[in-house]
């Protein structure tokens, strides 16, 4: 007899015999319609809100969803956000320029405005280019969970969420009621790879919650010695360098929140500094957010919100003299009003209006970057979404209309049918999505102006829960992007953005989860095939039209966790990435040469010891010392970032919980 079935029968019998149930009708109030949850089911039954509106379980929410818990992050010993993203189907890392690495998704370069990153609801993507630097960034030990929508989110989140959304929720803003401190050290054979640490404090009572977090780190981009970027060296004075000595990847985050009844206030600072042997790049981004939930009645909630962002993102200059080539301030004032109306248990409607104004100001003394004046963008948007929970399917219908004073307008509808029927679930999703051109996309427009990039995305997910501990889900996607906003570095040295007619990819992703009492494993496989009709030459390589530069077609991930004792766990992560292509050098005529990069296997092992709030972990990353490089994700004059060597990692954290008030 099935163990869970036995357990549920025993539990029921132990609580009440048939007679006592009948005698005590109140006990019926606490009976679940479903069998006792296994660990996997607890995870699957978590409510997730893809954007706004009513929360649904992960198997029914209208998006392909990956949820990573703090428990998984802690046990795998993740060093930074790249370690986590690499375990998620479809995600990979690529280089932009100057050793700044960003995200790629489903075989496409997605660093600028295609994947929205949020920390406790605060947008991380910068306002000039919409980028997010990833190497040694994000306080992963402060994360309570990450909800990743592996699919478009524009209809809800707007013009920075065309391909995916990475929604990070910290412990301080959710589960922590106490003090927590954490630190990580990463050590290569002959250098220190990183030293990061942070502290969080949060207090939660029924009506008042406040939290405060601080995180700072110092890290290296790579530890390779005697390095020269052959592509850069042809154009600039590129010294042969020991990257462990000359590079940096230094993040900083300050996060403050207050919640009093329906009023929520959050302020955040995200700083990041990195450099290659020639240039440094810095982000100094502040944001503040205030919103109030007016519960008009049991059915209707109105939420006015005001967000102010003040950033100096992507300022850069030369390492040798510290002189800035670009230093510009970008600000955003955003006002939003959202109405959430639950007609009944089965019908929910959400609608709202957003207005925001972006401004770019040159901070260098000559004030010449924006032509001696401010660079302004004005946007307004309206959005609506309806959810009907039906017997055969949950139907989500939504749309967003956005108009920008320079780019013009964009209208993106979405339709989702989802349902869990006993052990089976399905999701049929169709969305249009868009990327709203940011300040620099318009300012550096090569052809006068840049219009919004737009994607049509169709997705189908089928899942089956074979046992309470085992789930298999397979999804297929088709992603067609038009008016692709693309950075161009032209042979004459000019750079800028322009729309190209189309690009995109199609493929499949498979996720298999098995959670036993003392061990669990997550396997996933993702495959992406570049759309062969892509017109974006800078993404192409001569060897194949099935892959874009820097992108693997296949990725296989296995995460295994074993509880050796109640206090000690061992985690083994294996990541296989297929063949990639990268531009690495010039031929005799001065044309960039694309090279095939061998597949690699990243194997990581981590052991955790946990007792009474204290956690000590030790492990090794890249056990086989494969040093996978991070190629530039377009043909842009940069050779791949050399991979870091095997890294031994030590992590320590301590959490002291306050008494509940």
């Amino acid at each position, binding site marked *: 007899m*099935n163990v869970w079935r036995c357990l549920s029968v025993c539990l*029921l019998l132990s609580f009440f015999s*048939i007679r006592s*149930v009948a005698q005590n009708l109140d006990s019926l*109030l606490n009976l*679940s*319609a*479903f069998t006792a949850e296994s660990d996997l089911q607890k995870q699957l039954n978590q409510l997730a809100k893809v954007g706004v509106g009513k929360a649904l379980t992960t198997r029914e929410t209208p998006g392909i969803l990956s949820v990573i818990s703090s428990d998984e992050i802690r046990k795998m010993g993740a060093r930074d956000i790249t370690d986590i993203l690499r375990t998620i189907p479809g995600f990979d890392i690529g280089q932009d320029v100057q050793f700044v690495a960003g995200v790629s998704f489903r075989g496409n370069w997605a660093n600028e405005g295609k994947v929205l990153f949020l920390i406790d609801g605060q947008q991380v993507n910068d306002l000039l280019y919409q980028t997010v630097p990833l190497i040694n960034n994000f306080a992963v030990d402060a994360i309570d969970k990450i909800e990743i929508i592996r699919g478009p989110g524009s209809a809800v989140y707007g013009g920075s969420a065309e391909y995916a959304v990475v929604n990070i929720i910290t412990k301080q803003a959710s589960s922590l009621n106490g003090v927590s401190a954490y630190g990580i050290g990463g050590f290569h054979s002959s250098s220190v790879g990183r030293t990061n640490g942070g502290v969080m404090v949060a207090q939660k009572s029924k009506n008042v919650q406040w939290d405060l977090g601080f995180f700072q780190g110092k890290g290296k981009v790579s530890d390779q010695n005697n390095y020269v970027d052959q592509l850069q060296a042809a154009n600039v004075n590129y010294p042969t360098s020991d990257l462990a000595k000359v590079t940096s990847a230094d993040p900083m985050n300050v996060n403050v929140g207050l919640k009093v009844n329906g009023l929520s206030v959050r302020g955040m600072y995200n700083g990041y500094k990195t450099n290659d042997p020639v240039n440094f790049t810095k982000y100094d981004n502040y944001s503040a957010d205030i919103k109030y939930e007016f519960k008009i009645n049991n059915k209707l909630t109105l939420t006015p919100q005001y967000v102010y962002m003040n950033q100096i993102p992507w300022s850069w200059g030369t390492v040798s003299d510290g002189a800035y080539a670009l230093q510009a301030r970008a600000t955003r004032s955003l006002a939003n009003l959202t109405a959430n109306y639950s007609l009944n248990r089965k019908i929910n409607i959400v609608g709202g209006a957003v207005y925001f104004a972006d401004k770019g100001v040159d901070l260098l003394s000559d004030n010449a970057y924006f032509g001696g004046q401010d660079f302004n963008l004005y946007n307004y948007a309206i959005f609506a979404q309806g959810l009907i929970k039906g017997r055969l399917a949950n139907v989500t219908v939504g749309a967003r209309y956005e108009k920008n004073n320079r780019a013009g307008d964009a209208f993106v509808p979405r339709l989702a049918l989802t349902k869990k029927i006993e052990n089976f679930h399905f999701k049929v999703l169709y969305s249009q999505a868009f990327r709203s051109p940011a300040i620099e996309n318009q300012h550096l427009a090569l052809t006068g102006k840049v219009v919004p990039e737009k994607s049509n995305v169709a997705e189908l997910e089928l899942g089956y829960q074979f046992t309470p501990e085992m789930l298999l889900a397979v999804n297929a996607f088709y992603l067609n992007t038009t008016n692709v906003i693309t950075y161009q570095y032209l042979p004459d040295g000019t750079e800028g953005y322009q729309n190209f007619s189309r690009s995109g990819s199609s493929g499949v992703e498979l996720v298999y989860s098995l959670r036993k009492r003392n061990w669990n494993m997550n396997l996933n496989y993702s495959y992406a095939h570049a759309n062969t009709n892509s017109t974006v030459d800078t993404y192409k390589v001569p060897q194949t039209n099935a892959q874009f530069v820097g992108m693997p077609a296949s990725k296989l991930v296995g995460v295994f966790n074993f509880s050796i004792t109640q206090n000690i766990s061992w985690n083994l992560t294996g990541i296989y990435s297929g063949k990639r292509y990268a531009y690495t050098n010039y031929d005799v005529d001065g044309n960039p040469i694309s090279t095939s990069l061998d597949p690699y296997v990243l194997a990581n092992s981590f052991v955790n010891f946990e007792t009474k709030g204290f956690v000590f972990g030790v492990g090794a990353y890249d056990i086989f010392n494969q040093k996978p490089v991070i190629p530039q994700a377009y043909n842009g004059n940069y050779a791949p970032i050399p991979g870091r060597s095997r890294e031994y990692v030590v992590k320590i954290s301590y959490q002291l919980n306050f008494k509940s008030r």
Partner: protein
Amino acid sequence: MKKSLGWLLILFCFSVHAQTTNYQVYSVFVVSIAKYSSWPESDAKDFKIAVLGKSKVYEELIKTTTSKDINGKKVVITQTEDAPISDLPHIIYVSEGKSSQLADLLKKLEGKPVMIIAEREGLFKKGANFSFVVLDNNMLRFDINRKELENHQIKISKNLISLANETI
């Protein structure tokens, strides 16, 4: 290909034991509803519950009521594919798959002292005396059609009514 099919078969073998809906809880609800309801006097020796259509609740009702009684009567559980015309049970449990037969069932049993409990949500609005509903927090509840209960000459306790998610 053969190997793939083999793996699929192995995976599907696991599914034999997989169940997410807890029909034992449904059966506990049915018995509780019966305990807190009263039917017109009759000389029936047994308390009969008929499950219309295939539902796992049938096996669960048998397990739940073995060696038990309802209102002093031995409980007899049966399963049927068609609505009973003679030897009427006290309760007919309409399985999900037989929901479309509710209208016929109501015609056949009009005015007769048979309680109709429907597995499918919302059927109380179409004449079922009780129908189940799963709340957002996964808790099981029922909705009641009191008017139809009166038509069927069945009385239920106030305590039972107070537990209902919705009554009409």
